[in-house]
């Protein structure tokens, strides 16, 4: 199955690319900050456990 986008290839592919980039950044930031906070919390909880 091939798709012929014709003269509209740029806007269509551009939209998909832009959406993927924007949502990708959102997901990446979410996961990255999640991991960061989780690591920091684990470190602090380990310290708290030692005392």
């Amino acid at each position: 199955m091939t798709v012929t986008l014709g003269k509209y290839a740029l806007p269509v592919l551009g939209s998909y690319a832009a959406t993927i980039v924007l949502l990708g950044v959102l997901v990446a930031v979410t996961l990255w900050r999640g991991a960061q906070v989780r690591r920091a919390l684990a470190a602090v909880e380990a310290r708290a456990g030692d005392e």
Partner: protein
Amino acid sequence: MSIWEYANPKRFMDTSTRVLPVLVLATFACLLVGVIWGFFFTPDDYRQGATVRIIYLHVPAAMMAINAWVMMLVTSLIWLVRRHHVSALAAKAAAPVGLTFTLVALVTGALWGQPMWGTWWAWDPRLTSFLILFLFYLGYIALWAAIEDRDAAADLTSVLCLVGSVFAVLSRYAVNFWNQGLHQGASLSLDAEENVSDVFWQPLVMCIAGFVLLFITLVLLRTRTEIRARRLAALLMRERMA
């Protein structure tokens, strides 16, 4: 068993841990099926040509951009009335997601408008309202970031969300009054006459489901992060006191 049990952060964390893998899978499935179906297996529209494919991103993103604000309104109200922290944190978690969806709707709309309307941007009521919605999201996020005390920040942003909602609706109608539109009517509504034809409708529903699931997944993930960040701050505070 009532929904209020999830006001307990522990219960929320436990349940979301169990639900999240399923949600992630469902999100991927819906988005993949919807986008691939829409992109490869639908015909060109007789007037719009291939650009009709942008609808599968534009419409769901726009819908969720508005629904995200509604969700923030509801959770803000719950926080103000019942003081459940998870609720306030969920509102905080949802704002950047809503902001991104608004941006997606604006960007894909501009890319579609260029060949179809011959312009990237027109001061059309719908477009203008979305730009204003974007500004509301920015202000809301900036207020969260600016206030150090977490409970005060939750209170103030909730009040802003309530007032902002009223003014967002007002702006929508004011903008309608101000300029006649270029944008077509709703693509999906219950009265069948206006609807887009079935060929486009089925993958579109799939994509909408995918965006809804994506929103829920991201908000859950971000809320979990906020809860952890809260606990982290509390523990650090205790260490400093000790």
